[in-house]
């Protein structure tokens, strides 16, 4: 093992983190050890190697991620027990092979937004804009969600632009495009295998998707109750999507869903903050990413 220096960058935001981490690994000969996050959209990549290499990598990573967003850390001579406490093994780990399904990847795009509604709208726009496959849809912090897609670089570029445009209307957006991600980085990021998207668009009872995102349980209960009573919709998901935010999703015919979301928003906004959206024709990839069973209602 060449050197025992430890370095990391801690970045505020997933998209800047990807850029920084990719730059880190490409800048010098360091071994990535793990990706860690204490919460609130702070992500860290830890690397090991020679002091000089680690320093160079960390500097480059900070520059790529943005100096106002990234915190560098270089420990030239880690104290006794530090590496073990952090979970590093002392022997250099053989880089785990990238999963087999990633052989067709060329690029990764990431879009980070605030709130589940913005994330769902962004995902839908991305998947419809180009031939990309979603590989991550995750709540990563207080309010932030991140969506990652993969595919050919041209397609990913178009998709990320479309996702940013769709989400910008409702929330601040951070995005990034890794045209040629470092192969050691990909296995550490915990992407799930691409959701199988049956390309069929048909189905007579193709459902629309409505999402009501509210701040707090009281507003969510009121809103969901109003939604279910006002029109013929089926509740499909009810989950926590922020520190105090809950998202309630229903499906049904587009008219019913629109009416339900309208009634639900009105009821919930009397109590607390509300965000909502109706996706008239959600793509199958989006639905399987959300864990909602097929498009036949």
């Amino acid at each position, binding site marked *: 093992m060449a050197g025992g220096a430890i370095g*990391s960058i*801690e*970045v*505020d*935001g997933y998209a800047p983190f990807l850029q920084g981490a990719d730059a880190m690994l490409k800048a010098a000969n360091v071994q990535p050890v793990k990706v*860690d*996050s*204490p*919460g*609130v*959209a*702070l992500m*860290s990549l830890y690397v090991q190697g020679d002091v000089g290499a680690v320093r160079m990598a960390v500097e480059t990573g900070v520059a790529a991620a943005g100096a*106002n*967003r*990234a*915190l*560098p*850390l270089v*420990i030239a001579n*880690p*104290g*006794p*027990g*530090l*590496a*073990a*406490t*952090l*979970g590093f093994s002392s022997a250099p780990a053989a880089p785990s092979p990238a999963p087999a399904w990633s052989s067709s990847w060329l690029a990764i795009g990431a879009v980070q937004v*605030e709130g589940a509604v913005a994330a769902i709208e962004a995902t839908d726009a991305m998947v419809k804009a180009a031939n990309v496959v979603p590989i991550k849809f995750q709540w990563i*912090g*207080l*309010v*932030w969600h991140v969506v990652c897609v993969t595919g050919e670089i041209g397609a990913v570029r178009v998709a990320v632009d479309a996702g940013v445009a769709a989400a910008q209307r409702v929330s601040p957006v951070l995005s990034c495009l890794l045209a040629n991600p470092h192969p050691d980085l990909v296995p550490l990021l915990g992407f799930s295998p691409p959701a199988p998207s049956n390309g069929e668009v048909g189905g007579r009872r193709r459902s629309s998707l409505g999402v009501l995102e509210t701040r707090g*349980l009281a507003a969510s209960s009121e809103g969901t109750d109003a939604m279910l009573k006002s029109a013929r919709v089926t509740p499909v*998901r*009810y*989950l*926590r999507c922020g*520190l105090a935010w*809950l998202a309630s999703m229903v499906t049904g015919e587009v008219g019913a869903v629109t009416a339900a979301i309208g009634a639900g928003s009105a009821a919930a906004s009397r109590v607390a903050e509300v965000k909502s959206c109706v996706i008239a024709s959600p793509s199958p990839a989006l639905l399987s990413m959300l*864990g909602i069973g097929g498009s036949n209602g």
Partner: protein
Amino acid sequence: MDSADGLSNVMVSTDGNKLAPAGAGGSLRLRSGGASIGVVESMGLSPAVEALDAMLKAANVEVLRFEKLGLGWVIACIIGDVGSVTAAVEAGRAAAERLAKSGVTTAGVTKAMGGALDIVPVTSCLLASPSPAVLTLLRGAEDEQPAPSGGAIGYVETMGFAAAVQALDAMAKGAAVSFRGYSGTPPKFVLWIQGDVAAVRQALQQGAEVADRIGKALGSCLLARPHLETMENLPAKPTAAPLTSLVGGMPRHIKLLTAG
């Protein structure tokens, strides 16, 4: 005092990360007299790692607990003899503050909470002679606790884990109560104790006083005759992991709905 047990700590923190036994990294043998504890708590992982490194290099101490508490807060706890721990905590706190003052780790949270939030990014505490309750809190050695008796329970809520540790020490030393566990959403922590009504009342007073003195008390509450369900939601033996059956101090049947 079985402080020699500090040698073979194997901690499983709540998110499943196993910490290696303290001796694995080549650390020096802990002298059996050493039982002081120091805690450095910071917002963000890098300040905490830097603090831990500085602490390990500054003196002959061992890692007691290094854990992400959630929502960006990370604690680094060390154990050793009082002189070493004092020196180490000073060094660790300075190192963490150096990193944390750039504001990267707190900027996102401040923005998300709407701006007006004064987070002190690094806090620390030092207990020269911690009570068994604190050792339970930090490493889960339940055998050191007196068995819970008495029908009253109470809690103290503090801002920050370091403040919680100090408050718990004061409570356990101030009256004959036993520590049942902690819960809460970081940076706010709730410490649950049980005992006779008078003992719990006294302990809560002392705990709140200590937390007030360091400016971090958020309130306390005495449940003199708690409902049976509340008692059932407390674990039989106190653990080092936070209580998930109590969310922010409320019994399970009022817990926020989560799905999936």
